[in-house]
């Protein structure tokens, strides 16, 4: 557990250093994810404690967004100014994006299989 946590933190650290050094516009942990993936892929095996720790952490991923989410409390006034445009844009744009992404991906999968495009 502690060993696995150290591995995750070490990859995050390397990721943070890598983006500061290269200026790539991506957060350090995302690079850390990529590097850990490459390491696992290269090793061709996943240590059991790492798997357990990762899966435990990920099963509560939504908890980890709460502190940042509560930050909304500071920007009530900012949101209130144009709340209608912002609310409608957020809801519609998010739904449209989910639908379009899914339909495009689904269509390409079917198109490659050569199947007809019905439901």
């Amino acid at each position, binding site marked *: 557990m502690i060993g696995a946590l150290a591995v*995750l*933190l070490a*990859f*995050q650290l390397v990721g943070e250093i890598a983006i500061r050094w290269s200026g790539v*516009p*991506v*957060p*350090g*942990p*995302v690079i*850390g994810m*990529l*590097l*850990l*993936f490459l390491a*696992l*892929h290269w090793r061709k095996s996943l240590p059991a404690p*790492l*798997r357990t*720790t*990762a*899966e435990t*952490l*990920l099963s509560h*991923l*939504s*908890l*980890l*967004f*709460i*502190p*940042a989410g*509560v930050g*909304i409390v*500071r*920007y009530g006034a900012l*949101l209130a100014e*144009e709340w209608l*445009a*912002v609310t*409608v*844009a*957020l*809801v*519609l*744009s*998010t*739904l*449209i*994006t*989910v*639908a*379009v*992404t*899914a*339909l495009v*991906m*689904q269509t*390409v*999968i079917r198109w490659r299989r050569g199947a007809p495009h019905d439901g």
Partner: protein
Amino acid sequence: MDRIFIDIWVYLAASPLLWLTLTLAVYLAGQWLFRRSGGRAIFNPVALAIALLVLLLLLTGTPYSTYFTGAQFIHFLLGPATVALAVPLYLHWERVRQLALPILAGLLVGSLTAILSAIGIAELLGGSPRTLLSLAPKSVTTPVAMGIAEKIGGLPSLTAVLVILTGVIGAVAAPALLDWLRIRDNAVKGLAIGVAAHGIGTARALQISSLAGAFAGLAIGLNALLTALLVPLIVRLLHLTP
């Protein structure tokens, strides 16, 4: 007697312990309610927990910075948890490799849709240029979105809030929408949720299945890169200035 309560409150309100404990308690309560409701999307535990904590802060007059001294211990785990997304990606790599082309197609069209639809709808409803610029990167993970907003003349702090709201909307509504569209492939579900609703969506995708979580996690990374490239370009083409 009142004196004691006030003393205790003064101590607790300033210590990290109270808000750390409350964040966990509220999350657990949200999860309990979500399960009790039979998994109704409207009882999303994150949305409930955020709403309840915001209410508590407002009622007690506690500044966010005080709240965050406690909650930061949870917030910090976002980093290693993001790295941990490599595990489902590794476990499902074969599927990802097979679907490379559909993934890239969905990602490219989805990323463009997220940016253009947000700008377009807000513009139609009379949003100010600053709001449009703050909305443009709303579908990517917070640090990247804030960086993009800053670069193009939006308000990074407003963007941070819009990103969180986008994630919550995606987490609440996406699974039902995908069912309605008769999307059954968990790989497709995961990618769509990850492209539209970044990490908060990914948390929801992981509840669908580990495969959906793997694709959502992949989408966070790829969409962060693509959006960072596309938004400045689109802003220039549309002549948007703050």
